[in-house]
Protein backbone atom coordinates (compact mmCIF):
# COMPACT_ATOMS: atom_id res chain seq x y z
CA UNK A 1 0.00 0.00 0.00
CA UNK A 2 2.87 2.35 -0.78
CA UNK A 3 1.02 4.22 -3.56
CA UNK A 4 -0.12 7.13 -1.46
CA UNK A 5 -2.06 9.89 -3.15
CA UNK A 6 0.58 12.14 -4.70
CA UNK A 7 -1.39 15.35 -4.59
CA UNK A 8 -4.80 16.69 -3.70
CA UNK A 9 -7.25 16.95 -6.62
CA UNK A 10 -7.82 20.35 -8.20
CA UNK A 11 -10.73 22.51 -6.96
CA UNK A 12 -12.54 21.76 -10.24
CA UNK A 13 -12.17 17.98 -9.70
CA UNK A 14 -13.43 18.37 -6.14
CA UNK A 15 -16.47 20.30 -7.39
CA UNK A 16 -17.21 17.75 -10.13
CA UNK A 17 -16.98 14.88 -7.66
CA UNK A 18 -19.25 16.69 -5.19
CA UNK A 19 -21.83 17.07 -7.95
CA UNK A 20 -21.45 13.36 -8.81
CA UNK A 21 -21.89 12.46 -5.14
CA UNK A 22 -25.00 14.63 -4.95
CA UNK A 23 -26.43 12.96 -8.09
CA UNK A 24 -25.71 9.53 -6.55
CA UNK A 25 -27.63 10.55 -3.43
CA UNK A 26 -30.51 11.76 -5.62
CA UNK A 27 -30.56 8.37 -7.40
CA UNK A 28 -30.64 6.59 -4.03
CA UNK A 29 -33.48 8.85 -2.87
CA UNK A 30 -35.32 8.07 -6.13
CA UNK A 31 -34.96 4.32 -5.56
CA UNK A 32 -36.24 4.75 -2.00
CA UNK A 33 -39.22 6.79 -3.21
CA UNK A 34 -40.12 4.25 -5.93
CA UNK A 35 -39.77 1.40 -3.45
CA UNK A 36 -41.98 3.15 -0.88
CA UNK A 37 -44.63 3.98 -3.48
CA UNK A 38 -44.61 0.36 -4.71
CA UNK A 39 -44.66 -1.01 -1.17
CA UNK A 40 -47.61 1.08 0.00
CA UNK A 41 -49.70 0.59 -3.14
CA UNK A 42 -52.78 -1.57 -2.73
CA UNK A 43 -52.48 -4.78 -4.75
CA UNK A 44 -55.21 -7.31 -5.35
CA UNK A 45 -54.70 -10.78 -3.93
CA UNK A 46 -54.49 -13.01 -7.02
CA UNK A 47 -57.68 -14.95 -7.63
CA UNK A 48 -58.49 -17.02 -10.68
CA UNK A 49 -61.49 -15.59 -12.50
CA UNK A 50 -61.60 -16.97 -16.04
CA UNK A 51 -63.79 -14.09 -17.22
CA UNK A 52 -60.89 -11.65 -16.72
CA UNK A 53 -58.62 -13.49 -19.16
CA UNK A 54 -58.91 -14.41 -22.83
CA UNK A 55 -59.07 -18.18 -23.32
CA UNK A 56 -56.78 -19.34 -26.15
CA UNK A 57 -57.21 -23.02 -25.40
CA UNK A 58 -59.83 -24.42 -23.05
CA UNK A 59 -58.80 -26.56 -20.07
CA UNK A 60 -58.76 -30.30 -20.77
CA UNK A 61 -59.99 -31.53 -17.40
CA UNK A 62 -61.18 -30.33 -14.02
CA UNK A 63 -59.00 -30.76 -10.96
CA UNK A 64 -58.85 -29.63 -7.35
CA UNK A 65 -56.12 -27.17 -8.27
CA UNK A 66 -54.50 -25.61 -11.30
CA UNK A 67 -50.97 -24.28 -11.67
CA UNK A 68 -50.86 -21.24 -13.94
CA UNK A 69 -47.39 -20.47 -15.23
CA UNK A 70 -46.76 -16.78 -15.93
CA UNK A 71 -45.41 -17.13 -19.45
CA UNK A 72 -43.91 -14.46 -21.68
CA UNK A 73 -43.51 -15.74 -25.26
CA UNK A 74 -40.09 -14.11 -25.76
CA UNK A 75 -38.63 -15.40 -22.48
CA UNK A 76 -36.35 -18.48 -22.85
CA UNK A 77 -36.48 -19.16 -19.09
CA UNK A 78 -40.27 -19.42 -19.29
CA UNK A 79 -40.00 -22.06 -22.01
CA UNK A 80 -37.43 -23.99 -20.00
CA UNK A 81 -39.55 -23.81 -16.85
CA UNK A 82 -42.69 -24.93 -18.69
CA UNK A 83 -40.84 -27.81 -20.35
CA UNK A 84 -39.51 -28.84 -16.94
CA UNK A 85 -42.97 -28.78 -15.35
CA UNK A 86 -44.43 -30.78 -18.25
CA UNK A 87 -41.65 -33.34 -18.02
CA UNK A 88 -42.22 -33.86 -14.30
CA UNK A 89 -45.87 -34.64 -14.85
CA UNK A 90 -48.97 -34.10 -12.70
CA UNK A 91 -47.72 -36.27 -9.83
CA UNK A 92 -45.12 -33.66 -8.89
CA UNK A 93 -48.00 -31.19 -8.57
CA UNK A 94 -50.15 -33.54 -6.49
CA UNK A 95 -52.50 -33.96 -9.45
CA UNK A 96 -52.99 -30.27 -10.16
CA UNK A 97 -53.61 -29.25 -13.76
CA UNK A 98 -50.97 -27.22 -15.55
CA UNK A 99 -51.97 -24.14 -17.52
CA UNK A 100 -50.30 -21.12 -19.00
CA UNK A 101 -51.11 -17.47 -18.45
CA UNK A 102 -49.48 -15.44 -21.21
CA UNK A 103 -48.41 -12.12 -19.69
CA UNK A 104 -46.91 -8.84 -20.95
CA UNK A 105 -48.00 -9.62 -24.49
CA UNK A 106 -49.82 -6.59 -25.93
CA UNK A 107 -50.91 -8.45 -29.07
CA UNK A 108 -52.91 -11.66 -29.13
CA UNK A 109 -50.28 -14.44 -28.95
CA UNK A 110 -49.99 -17.18 -31.54
CA UNK A 111 -50.76 -20.79 -30.69
CA UNK A 112 -48.37 -22.19 -28.12
CA UNK A 113 -46.26 -25.19 -29.12
CA UNK A 114 -47.29 -28.25 -27.11
CA UNK A 115 -50.45 -26.57 -25.85
CA UNK A 116 -52.38 -29.85 -26.14
CA UNK A 117 -50.43 -31.11 -23.12
CA UNK A 118 -51.58 -28.19 -20.97
CA UNK A 119 -54.66 -29.54 -19.22
CA UNK A 120 -55.18 -26.22 -17.40
CA UNK A 121 -55.61 -24.40 -20.70
CA UNK A 122 -53.87 -21.45 -22.28
CA UNK A 123 -54.96 -17.98 -21.24
CA UNK A 124 -53.96 -14.51 -22.34
CA UNK A 125 -53.73 -11.72 -19.78
CA UNK A 126 -54.88 -9.09 -22.27
CA UNK A 127 -55.67 -6.55 -19.51
CA UNK A 128 -52.30 -6.83 -17.79
CA UNK A 129 -53.88 -7.98 -14.53
CA UNK A 130 -50.90 -10.12 -13.49
CA UNK A 131 -48.58 -7.11 -13.47
CA UNK A 132 -50.77 -4.07 -12.84
CA UNK A 133 -53.35 -5.48 -10.40
CA UNK A 134 -51.57 -8.38 -8.73
CA UNK A 135 -48.13 -6.72 -8.68
CA UNK A 136 -46.33 -9.83 -9.92
CA UNK A 137 -43.23 -9.38 -12.08
CA UNK A 138 -41.22 -12.58 -12.35
CA UNK A 139 -41.77 -14.66 -15.46
CA UNK A 140 -41.88 -18.42 -15.06
CA UNK A 141 -43.51 -18.39 -11.64
CA UNK A 142 -46.48 -20.70 -11.14
CA UNK A 143 -49.58 -19.58 -9.30
CA UNK A 144 -51.51 -22.44 -7.78
CA UNK A 145 -55.26 -21.78 -7.71
CA UNK A 146 -57.91 -23.93 -6.03
CA UNK A 147 -60.98 -24.90 -8.08
CA UNK A 148 -62.91 -22.03 -6.43
CA UNK A 149 -60.27 -19.53 -7.69
CA UNK A 150 -58.48 -19.05 -4.37
CA UNK A 151 -54.72 -18.63 -4.54
CA UNK A 152 -53.11 -21.55 -2.75
CA UNK A 153 -49.49 -20.54 -3.19
CA UNK A 154 -46.93 -19.13 -5.57
CA UNK A 155 -44.04 -21.27 -6.77
CA UNK A 156 -40.98 -19.30 -7.84
CA UNK A 157 -39.32 -20.00 -11.19
CA UNK A 158 -36.23 -21.49 -9.49
CA UNK A 159 -38.12 -23.25 -6.73
CA UNK A 160 -38.07 -27.06 -6.63
CA UNK A 161 -41.46 -28.62 -7.31
CA UNK A 162 -40.92 -32.24 -6.31
CA UNK A 163 -43.53 -33.35 -3.78
CA UNK A 164 -44.49 -29.72 -3.35
CA UNK A 165 -48.24 -30.31 -3.11
CA UNK A 166 -50.97 -28.62 -5.13
Amino acid at each position, binding site marked *: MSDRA*PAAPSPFAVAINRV*ALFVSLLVLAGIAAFWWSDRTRHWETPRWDASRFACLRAPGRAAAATWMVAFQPDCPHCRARLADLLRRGATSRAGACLGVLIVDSPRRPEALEGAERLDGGVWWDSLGIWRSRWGHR*VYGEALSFADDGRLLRVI*GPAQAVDAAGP
Partner: protein
Amino acid sequence: MDRAAGRIGTKGAGDARAWRWLLALPLPVLAWHTSLAHELAAGTLASAPGADPAAAWVGVAAAIASASAEAGFYGMLLAACGRRLPFVPAMTVILLISMLEPASTWIASLGSGGAAAPLWKLLLLGARAAGPSHGGFAAAFRSLGILAIARMLLWARALAAWSGASGRASLALVAAAWLVSHLALGGLLALLWGRSAT
Protein backbone atom coordinates in the same frame (compact mmCIF):
# COMPACT_ATOMS: atom_id res chain seq x y z
CA MET B 1 9.69 25.03 -15.87
CA ASP B 2 11.72 22.98 -13.43
CA ARG B 3 8.75 22.65 -11.14
CA ALA B 4 6.57 21.48 -14.03
CA ALA B 5 9.21 18.97 -15.10
CA GLY B 6 9.50 17.79 -11.53
CA ARG B 7 5.72 17.32 -11.32
CA ILE B 8 5.67 15.37 -14.54
CA GLY B 9 8.58 13.24 -13.35
CA THR B 10 6.80 12.46 -10.09
CA LYS B 11 3.55 11.71 -11.85
CA GLY B 12 5.33 9.40 -14.31
CA ALA B 13 6.99 7.50 -11.50
CA GLY B 14 3.66 7.29 -9.67
CA ASP B 15 1.94 6.00 -12.81
CA ALA B 16 4.62 3.35 -13.28
CA ARG B 17 4.15 2.26 -9.68
CA ALA B 18 0.39 2.24 -10.16
CA TRP B 19 0.52 0.10 -13.30
CA ARG B 20 2.79 -2.41 -11.54
CA TRP B 21 -0.27 -3.33 -9.48
CA LEU B 22 -1.75 -4.89 -12.60
CA LEU B 23 0.82 -7.69 -12.24
CA ALA B 24 -1.29 -8.94 -9.35
CA LEU B 25 -4.37 -9.27 -11.57
CA PRO B 26 -3.88 -12.85 -12.90
CA LEU B 27 -4.46 -14.30 -9.42
CA PRO B 28 -8.02 -12.98 -8.87
CA VAL B 29 -8.84 -13.44 -12.57
CA LEU B 30 -7.85 -17.09 -12.34
CA ALA B 31 -9.77 -17.54 -9.07
CA TRP B 32 -12.94 -15.99 -10.50
CA HIS B 33 -12.68 -17.96 -13.76
CA THR B 34 -12.08 -21.28 -12.01
CA SER B 35 -15.03 -20.73 -9.67
CA LEU B 36 -17.45 -19.57 -12.40
CA ALA B 37 -16.41 -22.29 -14.86
CA HIS B 38 -16.95 -24.88 -12.15
CA GLU B 39 -20.40 -23.49 -11.34
CA LEU B 40 -21.40 -23.34 -15.01
CA ALA B 41 -20.19 -26.89 -15.63
CA ALA B 42 -22.06 -28.14 -12.56
CA GLY B 43 -25.20 -26.22 -13.62
CA THR B 44 -25.51 -24.58 -10.20
CA LEU B 45 -25.61 -21.04 -11.54
CA ALA B 46 -29.35 -20.38 -11.49
CA SER B 47 -29.14 -17.37 -13.80
CA ALA B 48 -27.50 -19.34 -16.60
CA PRO B 49 -28.67 -22.93 -16.57
CA GLY B 50 -26.86 -25.09 -19.09
CA ALA B 51 -24.51 -22.32 -20.24
CA ASP B 52 -21.17 -23.04 -21.89
CA PRO B 53 -18.35 -23.03 -19.26
CA ALA B 54 -16.45 -20.68 -21.61
CA ALA B 55 -19.04 -18.08 -20.61
CA ALA B 56 -17.14 -17.84 -17.31
CA TRP B 57 -15.01 -15.15 -18.98
CA VAL B 58 -18.12 -12.97 -19.10
CA GLY B 59 -18.37 -13.38 -15.35
CA VAL B 60 -14.67 -12.50 -14.96
CA ALA B 61 -15.23 -9.34 -17.03
CA ALA B 62 -18.21 -8.50 -14.81
CA ALA B 63 -16.06 -8.96 -11.70
CA ILE B 64 -13.40 -6.60 -13.12
CA ALA B 65 -16.08 -4.07 -14.10
CA SER B 66 -17.60 -4.30 -10.64
CA ALA B 67 -14.20 -3.75 -8.95
CA SER B 68 -13.58 -0.78 -11.28
CA ALA B 69 -16.97 0.70 -10.40
CA GLU B 70 -16.29 0.26 -6.69
CA ALA B 71 -12.84 1.86 -6.97
CA GLY B 72 -14.40 4.67 -9.01
CA PHE B 73 -17.04 5.20 -6.35
CA TYR B 74 -14.50 5.47 -3.54
CA GLY B 75 -12.33 7.67 -5.78
CA MET B 76 -15.30 9.99 -6.23
CA LEU B 77 -16.01 9.95 -2.50
CA LEU B 78 -12.44 10.84 -1.56
CA ALA B 79 -12.10 13.42 -4.33
CA ALA B 80 -15.25 15.13 -3.03
CA CYS B 81 -13.37 15.47 0.28
CA GLY B 82 -10.27 16.83 -1.43
CA ARG B 83 -8.23 13.61 -1.41
CA ARG B 84 -7.07 11.39 -4.25
CA LEU B 85 -7.34 7.63 -4.51
CA PRO B 86 -4.96 5.89 -6.96
CA PHE B 87 -7.43 4.10 -9.23
CA VAL B 88 -5.44 1.16 -10.61
CA PRO B 89 -4.02 0.03 -7.25
CA ALA B 90 -7.43 0.49 -5.61
CA MET B 91 -9.16 -1.55 -8.33
CA THR B 92 -6.52 -4.28 -8.04
CA VAL B 93 -6.83 -4.47 -4.27
CA ILE B 94 -10.65 -4.68 -4.53
CA LEU B 95 -10.30 -7.48 -7.08
CA LEU B 96 -7.81 -9.28 -4.82
CA ILE B 97 -10.04 -9.11 -1.75
CA SER B 98 -13.04 -10.02 -3.88
CA MET B 99 -11.42 -13.46 -4.19
CA LEU B 100 -13.30 -14.09 -0.94
CA GLU B 101 -16.42 -14.41 -3.12
CA PRO B 102 -15.22 -17.46 -5.11
CA ALA B 103 -13.98 -18.79 -1.77
CA SER B 104 -17.49 -18.32 -0.35
CA THR B 105 -18.99 -20.19 -3.29
CA TRP B 106 -16.56 -23.04 -2.71
CA ILE B 107 -17.34 -23.12 1.04
CA ALA B 108 -21.07 -23.01 0.30
CA SER B 109 -20.72 -26.08 -1.92
CA LEU B 110 -18.95 -28.07 0.81
CA GLY B 111 -21.14 -30.88 2.06
CA SER B 112 -24.34 -29.34 0.66
CA GLY B 113 -26.34 -32.54 0.72
CA GLY B 114 -29.73 -31.00 1.41
CA ALA B 115 -29.31 -30.96 5.18
CA ALA B 116 -29.52 -27.71 7.15
CA ALA B 117 -26.35 -25.63 6.96
CA PRO B 118 -24.04 -25.97 9.99
CA LEU B 119 -23.53 -22.98 12.26
CA TRP B 120 -19.93 -22.36 11.15
CA LYS B 121 -21.12 -22.04 7.56
CA LEU B 122 -23.88 -19.61 8.51
CA LEU B 123 -21.42 -17.50 10.49
CA LEU B 124 -18.90 -17.45 7.64
CA LEU B 125 -21.24 -16.92 4.71
CA GLY B 126 -24.39 -15.44 6.23
CA ALA B 127 -27.89 -16.48 5.27
CA ARG B 128 -26.77 -17.56 1.78
CA ALA B 129 -25.48 -20.77 3.39
CA ALA B 130 -29.07 -21.65 4.29
CA GLY B 131 -30.24 -21.58 0.65
CA PRO B 132 -32.21 -19.17 -1.52
CA SER B 133 -33.58 -16.03 0.12
CA HIS B 134 -37.05 -14.66 -0.46
CA GLY B 135 -37.62 -10.94 -0.89
CA GLY B 136 -35.37 -8.20 -2.20
CA PHE B 137 -33.79 -7.15 1.10
CA ALA B 138 -33.26 -10.72 2.30
CA ALA B 139 -31.50 -11.45 -0.99
CA ALA B 140 -29.39 -8.28 -0.79
CA PHE B 141 -28.17 -8.97 2.75
CA ARG B 142 -27.87 -12.74 2.49
CA SER B 143 -24.08 -12.65 2.24
CA LEU B 144 -23.50 -10.78 5.51
CA GLY B 145 -21.17 -13.08 7.38
CA ILE B 146 -17.60 -13.18 8.65
CA LEU B 147 -16.17 -13.25 5.11
CA ALA B 148 -18.13 -10.14 4.10
CA ILE B 149 -16.95 -8.37 7.27
CA ALA B 150 -13.37 -9.48 6.56
CA ARG B 151 -13.66 -7.99 3.07
CA MET B 152 -14.84 -4.68 4.56
CA LEU B 153 -11.98 -4.68 7.11
CA LEU B 154 -9.35 -5.37 4.45
CA TRP B 155 -10.67 -2.68 2.15
CA ALA B 156 -10.97 -0.17 5.00
CA ARG B 157 -7.33 -0.82 5.90
CA ALA B 158 -6.20 -0.22 2.30
CA LEU B 159 -8.35 2.90 2.08
CA ALA B 160 -6.89 4.26 5.33
CA ALA B 161 -3.37 3.77 3.99
CA TRP B 162 -4.14 5.70 0.80
CA SER B 163 -6.34 8.44 2.18
CA GLY B 164 -4.43 9.14 5.35
CA ALA B 165 -7.65 8.87 7.34
CA SER B 166 -7.79 6.90 10.57
CA GLY B 167 -8.62 3.20 10.45
CA ARG B 168 -11.85 3.83 12.34
CA ALA B 169 -12.99 6.57 9.95
CA SER B 170 -12.19 4.37 6.95
CA LEU B 171 -14.06 1.44 8.44
CA ALA B 172 -17.06 3.66 9.18
CA LEU B 173 -17.02 4.91 5.58
CA VAL B 174 -16.74 1.41 4.10
CA ALA B 175 -19.44 0.01 6.40
CA ALA B 176 -21.77 2.92 5.59
CA ALA B 177 -21.17 2.51 1.86
CA TRP B 178 -21.81 -1.24 2.13
CA LEU B 179 -25.03 -0.66 4.07
CA VAL B 180 -26.37 2.00 1.69
CA SER B 181 -25.40 0.08 -1.46
CA HIS B 182 -27.07 -3.08 -0.14
CA LEU B 183 -30.18 -1.16 0.89
CA ALA B 184 -30.33 0.23 -2.65
CA LEU B 185 -29.80 -3.27 -4.09
CA GLY B 186 -32.55 -4.65 -1.85
CA GLY B 187 -34.92 -1.88 -2.94
CA LEU B 188 -34.14 -2.49 -6.62
CA LEU B 189 -34.65 -6.25 -6.27
CA ALA B 190 -37.92 -5.66 -4.42
CA LEU B 191 -39.06 -3.40 -7.26
CA LEU B 192 -37.91 -5.91 -9.88
CA TRP B 193 -39.64 -8.89 -8.28
CA GLY B 194 -42.78 -7.17 -6.99
CA ARG B 195 -45.07 -9.63 -5.22
CA SER B 196 -43.77 -12.59 -7.18
CA ALA B 197 -42.12 -15.52 -5.46
CA THR B 198 -38.42 -15.78 -6.29
